[in-house]
């Protein structure tokens, strides 16, 4: 690789493959904690594919953040260490590599149409075990829970049938078995 004039940095082109991983991060639910986590990712140039957060213990004021990210194994190790460095972070667990985990996402999907298309949308929603949580004569709102892939597949199927809009929660995850994270 040639020298880059004007720069002391040698930009190494890493050929390593990026992998996708899901991190569960237990944090103190204090003001600004989400900003710290997001700022860390944007400041250091890490990817965020999905991020969810909610308080999980009201007495303890702890929140659980689930982050889906991707990077080389080195970058993923860094992300984990950098997260652990944040003062309000209790624990970081990688639910893709460290412990086997289960992932789910919920989506609300609005579809409008009439006649054949409307019937087909309803038929497919049964196949996917989506629930209808709102309806008019010309529309449905489906609630669908599953993996990201399942939701992607359903949304794709709805496109020709009058898909209006989609709202997704992002991935939440938990480890398998009896133990906590």
């Amino acid at each position: 690789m040639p020298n880059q004039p004007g720069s002391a940095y040698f930009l190494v082109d890493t050929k390593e493959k990026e992998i996708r991983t899901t991190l569960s991060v237990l944090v103190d639910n204090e003001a600004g904690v989400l900003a710290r986590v997001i700022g860390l990712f944007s400041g250091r140039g890490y990817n965020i594919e999905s991020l969810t957060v909610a308080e999980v213990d009201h007495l303890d004021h702890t929140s659980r953040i689930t982050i889906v990210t991707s990077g080389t194994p080195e970058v993923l190790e860094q992300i984990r260490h950098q997260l652990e460095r944040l003062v309000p972070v209790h624990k970081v667990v990688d639910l893709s590599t460290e412990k086997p985990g289960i992932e789910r996402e919920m989506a609300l999907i609005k579809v409008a149409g009439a006649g054949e298309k409307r019937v087909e949308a309803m038929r497919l929603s049964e196949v996917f075990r989506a629930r209808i949580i709102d309806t008019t004569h010309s529309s449905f709102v489906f609630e669908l829970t599953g993996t990201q892939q399942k939701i992607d597949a359903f949304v794709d199927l709805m496109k020709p049938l009058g898909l209006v809009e989609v709202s997704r929660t992002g991935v939440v995850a938990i480890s398998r078995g009896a133990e906590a994270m």
Partner: protein
Amino acid sequence: MSGPQDPTGAEIVIRALKDHGVRHIFGYPGGAVLPIYDALFQDEGIEHVLVRHEQGATHAAEGYARSTGKPGVVLVTSGPGATNAVTGLTDALMDSIPLVCITGQVPTHLIGMDAFQEADTVGITRPCTKHNWLVRDVRDLPRIMHEAFYIATTGRPGPVVIDIPKDVQFKRGPYVGPSNIKHKTYQPRVKGDLKKIEQAVEMIAAAKRPVFYTGGGVINSGPLASQLLREFVRMTGYPITSTLMGLGAYPASDKQWLGMLGMHGTYEANLAMHGCDLMIAVGSRFDDRVTGRIDAFSPNSKKIHIDIDPSSINKTVRVDLGIVGDCAFVLEDMIRLWKAKLLKPDRSALSAWNMQIDGWRARNCLAYKPSADVIKPQYAVERLYELTKGRDTYISTEVGQHQMWAAQFYRFEEPKRWMTSGGLGTMGYGLPAAVGIQVAHPGSLVIDIAGEASVQMTMQELSTAVQYDLPIKIFILNNKYMGMVRQWQQLLHGGRYSHSYSEALPDFVKLAEAYGAVGIRATNPAELDDKIKDMIDVNRPVLFDCVVDQNENCFPMIPSGAAHNEMILGDAATDPTVSEAGKVLV
């Protein structure tokens, strides 16, 4: 519950500062911080140093912290007070300096209203602090104050910000002392994993071409770490190099010392790093100025890395053995295990390795062409060193060529004597840092080795030095250029000196006099010694205008994208074949 007998938020701040042994703070008053200034006025025991710009307060606190090992404390107002402090906070974060910065904030009911002098201080300082807090309730204030000191000073040290709205400073609340405070999530690890340490000492004993590569972490850990490092390095007999931030942890006069490594490090240090078979990194972080081209960095070595910050290990360079812990604890265990296992270095391999290193030393990489007509900047630093070395001296620097010459030619025997902006490279660091150092060490000789460009960034702090009778010496290597910029433009941009020459400079002697300080100018080598002696002898702040060779470059240099074994040596390198080979690389 709070009663009329409880202290106000402002008084809580002062009490907490005193409970943490704070004697000096650096600050600048303003509307949103006036209650704290009022409490300070009514209190004896904390000395406040009024700076001329909040950036100066942060650098002064850094100098204070780095030269004492105690946290530096900064007090500034909201809005511009806080934003002006950002450079110093970032600098302290990069160099792991413990700072506690208290910022005033507009009253809680005005937050978010775009009030006068309002800024989202915790938002702005989140990425440039180790942690920060906005105190919305006075009952949280004692806990936050104590947590702040705990977080700033333990683990990998760093700056913290406590943003206190003005109404919280007025409100009364109970004070709780520091002993009752424990942190839920923040528990840094100081003891290293013994199994790994055992593995490390065995690797160290088995090495044929070992090198110690130590950094600022050894200084931050405290005097014991430097002492243990010296003990262990001498037990092994292995060569040792250090980063810019680590200078002084190991004495420069020792025969095992290779000098600084990195972009402007010595030939012997960089080639030892390149050719070693075992690298023992202690409190150093494989910064890009140290490693050069990363995929050609020390290609045939096993690497042991001791660091208190787990995220430093394997960040830029993959290591074979990472040990998380405070280097004083880890070194202590290493020495104990080395002795218990009766380990010995491989004498014959070591003597061959030392012979190779001596060959590199013989290149005399720091040699420069002496001159009888103009002061060479290297000569100026050499003379400064010779004339101050027996004294109780502290050195700070700005950033640029002069900083590298200071690192190369001033020889440090003890830790905490060398204060420089390493990670962030903040021009304007050295003068206010010298103010902070002198506040901490009133009887010592404190010298800021400066450049004429850098020093003008925080020149106004000379006024602070005059106000508090701080006899700091600002030794300017004046070449009228932003020297390092000019050097890069010469070497990398075809000599197109785009905006690196200062067409107009103040008369530094007159400027010193205008501030009420002493101005001295030296323009030729013959008068330099006497002028330096004058500078040392006068017990007042001195601005020393040392007019040096305008075209001198700082060598050795690892150019962009090059490896340790591809360094460029100076014109006066003694081995012509190497210097020819080096020139091809430019």
